[in-house]
């Protein structure tokens, strides 16, 4: 195991962490507003394919990112329409969204499979900082999306705790009727949160095709959407903790392909179970603790709201 491969591991850890973090932040926003969206995988796929196509056709990576985010938000809004506006079962709608997203992505991208990418997000070089040994390559030569992910984490955290809209959004996930009688539109809050969540999942997908694997292929998202769902629970619905979890889970993804390089005789497949097993353990801890205090899960998660029902 040499220095270069170790640095490579950490660089990849940070990249994967950012990928997972963006999608998880989106899911967190949606769940904080009370809407479970199991369509993350589909929204990431749509983000990835639209970013790739826009990159090829337009040649501008930032336009590609913007289009990916809009596509993610549009797809998420399908889920929003059915679950929030119509009050349909969130689990069923979310899974259907995964199917729709994967199908649409494959359909849109079928002519682009194997094509070279049109553009990519060039890693940011921070004058001076990027040359520092270890720290430079790991933290200061990453794709701009990594820094966007960190900014988004801070932004989500600040919005949720320090703004009127964030307070209302959290309230709509805890108790829709309280939020409604306080004069906020639960419908509006939830629809916006779901759409914003879709935009972040779309950005996460765009990161795949604009930086990490600059190619499009079906199944590119490879189940990372499910890790993002797990991550939200692992991080107890707190943006900061979800960030640390993203680094941990990103680490397992980065390590998975490098075990052999490091000469570790351990199955990478078993390693890739780790995020899920850890999340299960955290769930157990949460539920044992929540006998004494409220669970960190939004109390209204999964329940549709309609005012005049009685």
């Amino acid at each position, binding site marked *: 195991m040499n220095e270069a491969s170790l640095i490579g591991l950490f660089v990849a850890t940070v990249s994967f962490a950012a990928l997972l973090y963006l999608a998880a932040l989106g899911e967190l926003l949606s769940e904080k507003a009370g809407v479970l969206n199991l369509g993350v995988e589909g929204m990431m796929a749509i983000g990835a394919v639209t970013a790739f196509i826009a990159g090829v056709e337009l040649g501008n990576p930032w336009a590609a990112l913007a289009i990916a985010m809009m596509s993610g938000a549009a797809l998420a809004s399908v889920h929003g329409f059915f679950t929030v506006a119509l009050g349909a079962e969130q689990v069923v709608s979310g899974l259907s969204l995964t199917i729709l997203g994967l199908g649409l992505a494959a359909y849109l991208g079928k002519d682009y499979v194997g094509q070279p990418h049109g553009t990519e997000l060039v890693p940011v070089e921070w004058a001076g900082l990027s040359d520092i040994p270890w720290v430079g390559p790991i933290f200061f030569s990453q794709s701009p999306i990594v820094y966007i992910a960190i900014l988004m984490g801070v932004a989500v955290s600040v919005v949720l*705790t*320090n*703004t*009127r*809209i*964030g*307070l*209302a959004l*959290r*309230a709509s996930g*805890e*108790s829709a*009727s*309280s*939020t*409604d*009688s*306080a*004069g*906020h*539109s639960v419908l509006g809050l939830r629809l916006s949160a779901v759409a914003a969540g879709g935009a972040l999942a779309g950005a996460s997908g765009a990161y795949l095709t604009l930086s990490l694997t600059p190619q499009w292929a079906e199944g590119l998202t490879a189940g990372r959407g499910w890790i993002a769902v797990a991550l939200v629970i692992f991080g107890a619905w707190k943006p900061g903790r979800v960030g640390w979890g993203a680094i941990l889970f990103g680490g397992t993804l980065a390590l998975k392909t490098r075990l052999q390089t490091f000469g570790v005789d351990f199955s990478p497949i078993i390693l890739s179970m780790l995020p899920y097993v850890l999340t299960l353990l955290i769930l157990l801890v949460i539920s044992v603790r929540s006998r004494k*205090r*409220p669970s960190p899960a939004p*109390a209204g998660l999964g329940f549709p709201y309609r*005012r*005049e029902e*009685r």
Partner: protein
Amino acid sequence: MTHSSSVVDGNQFAVHLSDVWKMFPGVVANAGVELCVRRGTIHALLGENGAGKSTLMNVLAGVYRPDRGQLKLHGQVHSFRNPADALSAGVGMVHQEFRLIPSFSVAENVVLGSAPSLIQPRQLEAEVAAMAKKFGLRVDPTQPLWQLSMGERQKVEILKVLWRDASVLILDEPTTVLTPSEVDELAEILRRMAQDGRSIIFISHKLHEVSGICSEATVLRQGKTVATSLDMAATDAAELARLMVGSSPVAPDRPEVATPGDPLLELTELRASGDRGIDAFSNITFQVNSGEIVGIAGVAGNGQRELADVIAGLRPSTQGSVTLNGADVTAARPQQRFRAGLAYIPEDRLGVGLAPRLSITDNAILRIYRQQRRGPFIVAEKALAYCKYLITRFGVRSGDPGGPIAALSGGNLQRLLVGRELDGQPSVVVAAQPTRGLDVQGVKAIQDLLLDQRKAGAAVLLISEDLDELLTLTDRLLVMEGGVIRGEFDPRTVSRHEVGMAMLADTNATTR
């Protein structure tokens, strides 16, 4: 664009509702209601459970949209599409079930809906603390809400409304969760707000409470207004009571003096915890004998609900014992207690006593399906026959027995539930609020069934918030307050005042 009303009475009323109609599937909750509230007064909205008070106030607060009717505030016509509209017009409501968020801090709960765009938690907490102090509401804005008592939570609700500077304040049955000293505190807070120029609507079905607090009253009965803007000082309680319940209901004949037999239900030193983990009641010792009805009076939330659950085996006791027919059942499961002769009519009909999404037949056989099996199967014909038998015997008005239980009206739900529980000739009957919210015939039917049980030699424990019901039906009356028995009375000789004192834990009440 705002147009003043040309009506002469226009401006003197803070609130003027006229001809309000509101319908729900199968229910007409408001049928042409009128309400006028003067500015700067505390106005009582009286009526029995189910009279349409809460619905009317939800219309005023923008939660429900009326199907017809006009709403004027300070002379101006309004049409609220949602609570936000009502709030911006100055109407704030404290709901009976608090609209609070347990995981939020007190300050976050208070400002929700009217927070500044950017929130600095510390500063906000200081502002909320200042407002609380101004009106004499003692709460800590930094505390998470789930740690607060019910009385404290109500203060948070009131703070919410004050924070929005509402000019009209609606309180829906505000005293049900309060201790007597908290009620006094609330009255003082309300008076301060009225002096401040705010108009307060105080919903209640308890006469004695509102008489000291409110200056005027409106009475609703079965969705209609029976009296508006009565001067409380000039109206006596008997008149109000008559208005609330209509032509004075035929009280069931006072039962003959019981000749109690053997004790069938014995509670000894019983203690149990409530949902919040603290004692709901303790040191409960009494017995109910064959052929008598023992009543438990008390303000809601003083341990009666938990006591009924413990007797039925739905909640574990932490100390003491329960004996049915001489057999100790303290550790027995609900079904074993039922087989030992216990019938339990729970407070929540649909949701505890009856399963909401199943059919009438499925609900009818809840107690006897275990006996109706052939192998692993429930015999459908027997189940249907039993359901039809219950329907006939207890006069349940229903359509298809295979239809959903939720399609039945409140009175018919209760007839089915009570009938099912009483059908197996129980030796002990525990009935919690069995007539709450029922119409006059429904109340009479259920009360007659309980009296029949008494005649047949059962021991009946009747838990009720309706003092009149208790005074007419029971042979002995116990009063529960703060989780303990505060007194035992002979309902034939005791005055309402004495019982009321005990319910409020006045020290003069004595245990005989």
